[in-house]
């Protein structure tokens, strides 16, 4: 049983160690790295799916590491939500491993060998976050995730000033987020005396008054907010994500902010269930502002990755809005939105990378006429773009539908109307990219596109289509996850 829970982390660890041992820093990495990495991610995906199936059947799995009993030792807690997140993130990792070019001109020679193993190390942190049942353990997995992401982000550093500056901002602001998280942990431990999440959920309302909980909440909201890039804490994202290489941007865009949203959805209902009705209006307002500002800023950008980075922020707003409603429908909507968005966003970044490879530049004005030169890219671009904009039958339509329905049910009319308007603006941005890249006078195609990269993008596009077509099958799962999260919010789940 514990093997299923720990397998993704162990796989990522073993693969990372192996890959880094065969890559000499001063020479090109072995040409078969991507085979090992893809194999590892496929196995991680398999174990994630097995975990999801198991936890849907028998409920959450709790593992007490080292045999120490629950509130005293470190507990790992895996439920259906964890399983779903592990599966989807492994899928994106698989696509990234396939998508990475064997040799990238944008990365320094002596760092080429680091990319595949670092992505594995990144995933140790990612999978660890999804199964953490203890607050400090969550912090440690976040740090594992963070340091790998720092290094991946700086790989292009010496070749581009933007990359160095963007990476510095990313590093410093995320260190601030870690600091806030750590201070929050210290305060919680001092007052409540335990760090086990389930135990805190029981003890918090007994030990702390509402006023004191409200003093604690900003630390966690700010820490997770910086990681999730909500308003007004998102400014590091558009400065750093566009500067990285397309494959790494896509990986980050799909996964890192969603890990922050996962932490929000896991920790806040458990810890602050008592004051959730006070926090809810604030978080709803932040979600609405995030949605609007993200998409408004995206409309002004002229480079593909910058537009997409602002769209990450806007879509995070949808998830935070749905989550903050606190209803079963809202939590289910946020879960489904996570599944849809992780894949769609990573896919869009990868396709944007294909455009950049074709034309040599990321800017919209340098592209054109791809419909005549490479029509299959159009077929690959449509699913994630229309999914993001919310067109049926892609996954985004159902995700947005669930969010709108939960907004109407909770009588948040401003948020619902904002969500609809933001959807139209998202469609505008996607058609702007389509217009610039596929229509218009044909621009000479300068670069090749690898078959592996097309395979990676097709995999993710197929998922966006499949998730939309299989909505009726996946919706009950999302509803079950939403129900479990709602139970933790309403203190009916006793340990």
């Amino acid at each position, binding site marked *: 049983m514990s093997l299923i829970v720990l397998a993704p982390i162990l796989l990522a660890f073993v693969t990372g160690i192996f890959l880094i041992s065969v890559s000499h820093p001063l020479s090109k990495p072995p040409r078969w790295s991507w085979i090992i990495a893809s194999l590892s991610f496929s196995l991680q995906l398999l174990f994630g799916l097995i975990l999801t199936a198991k936890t849907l059947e028998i409920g959450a799995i709790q593992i007490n590491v080292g045999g120490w009993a629950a509130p005293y030792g470190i507990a790992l807690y895996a439920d259906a939500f964890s399983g779903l997140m592990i599966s989807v993130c492994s899928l994106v990792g698989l696509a990234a491993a396939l998508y990475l070019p064997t040799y990238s001109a944008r990365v320094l020679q002596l760092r080429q060998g680091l990319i595949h193993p670092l992505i594995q190390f990144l995933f140790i942190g990612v999978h660890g976050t999804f199964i953490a049942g203890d607050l*400090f353990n969550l912090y*440690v997995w976040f*740090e594992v995730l*963070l*340091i790998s992401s*720092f*290094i991946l982000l*700086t790989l292009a*550093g*010496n070749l581009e*000033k*933007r990359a*160095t*500056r963007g*990476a*510095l*901002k990313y*590093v*410093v602001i995320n*260190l*601030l987020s*870690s*600091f806030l998280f*750590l*201070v929050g*942990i*210290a*305060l919680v*431990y*001092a007052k409540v005396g335990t*760090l086990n999440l389930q135990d805190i959920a029981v003890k918090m309302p007994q030990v702390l008054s509402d006023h004191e909980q409200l003093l604690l909440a900003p630390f966690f909201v700010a820490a997770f907010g910086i990681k999730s890039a909500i308003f007004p804490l998102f400014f590091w994202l558009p400065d750093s994500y566009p500067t990285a290489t397309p494959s790494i941007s896509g990986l980050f865009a799909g996964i890192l902010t969603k890990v922050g949203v996962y932490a929000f959805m896991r920790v806040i209902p458990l810890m602050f269930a008592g004051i959730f009705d006070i926090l809810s209006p604030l978080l709803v307002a932040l979600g609405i502002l995030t949605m609007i500002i993200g998409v408004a800023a995206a409309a002004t950008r*002229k*480079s593909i990755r910058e537009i997409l980075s602002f769209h990450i922020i806007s879509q995070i707003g949808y998830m935070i809005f749905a989550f903050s409603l606190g209803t079963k429908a809202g939590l289910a909507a946020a879960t489904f939105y996570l599944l849809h968005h992780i894949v769609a966003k990573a896919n869009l970044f990868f396709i944007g990378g294909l455009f950049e490879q074709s034309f040599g530049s*990321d*800017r919209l004005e340098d592209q054109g006429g791809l419909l005549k030169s490479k029509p299959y890219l159009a077929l690959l671009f449509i699913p994630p773009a229309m999914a993001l904009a919310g067109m049926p039958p892609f996954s985004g339509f159902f995700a947005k539908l669930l969010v709108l329905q939960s907004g109407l049910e909770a009588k948040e009319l401003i948020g619902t109307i904002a969500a609809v308007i933001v959807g139209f603006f998202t469609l505008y941005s996607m058609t702007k990219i389509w217009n610039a890249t596929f229509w218009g006078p044909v621009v000479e195609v300068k670069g090749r596109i690898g078959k592996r990269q097309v395979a990676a993008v097709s995999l993710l596009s197929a998922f966006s289509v499949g998730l939309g077509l299989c909505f009726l099958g996946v919706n009950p799962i999302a509803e079950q996850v939403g129900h479990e999260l709602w139970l933790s919010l309403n203190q009916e789940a006793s340990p």
Partner: protein
Amino acid sequence: MNALIIIAIWITSFVGISCLLSRSLFRTLLGVLFLSHCANLILFLMTGPKSASAAIIGSSAETLSLEASDPLAQALILTAIVISFGFLAFLLALAREAFEVLQTDELETAHDHDHLKKEQH
């Protein structure tokens, strides 16, 4: 003793945050360093600096005595120190590379939008 630690937290957080917000990259690094010290001090304060003995079960006892210091707190602080040490090492290497690339210590004056400018032939 508690008062001294609280004053230390106060000073390190103030210095840390103001250094973090400064223009010079080197001061930003110092800010990160101070903030990590601040976090460690908060962890130390929050988990009881007033205890007397070490967190070791004596040879004649079965369980930890009540005056012993909290071992979990020590573990938390150690982990936090080690993690911030690793981060600081990386950040120093990154800052050195940034200085070589940007040729200046100040991030904002090195702003170049040449990815947005058109090529001037």
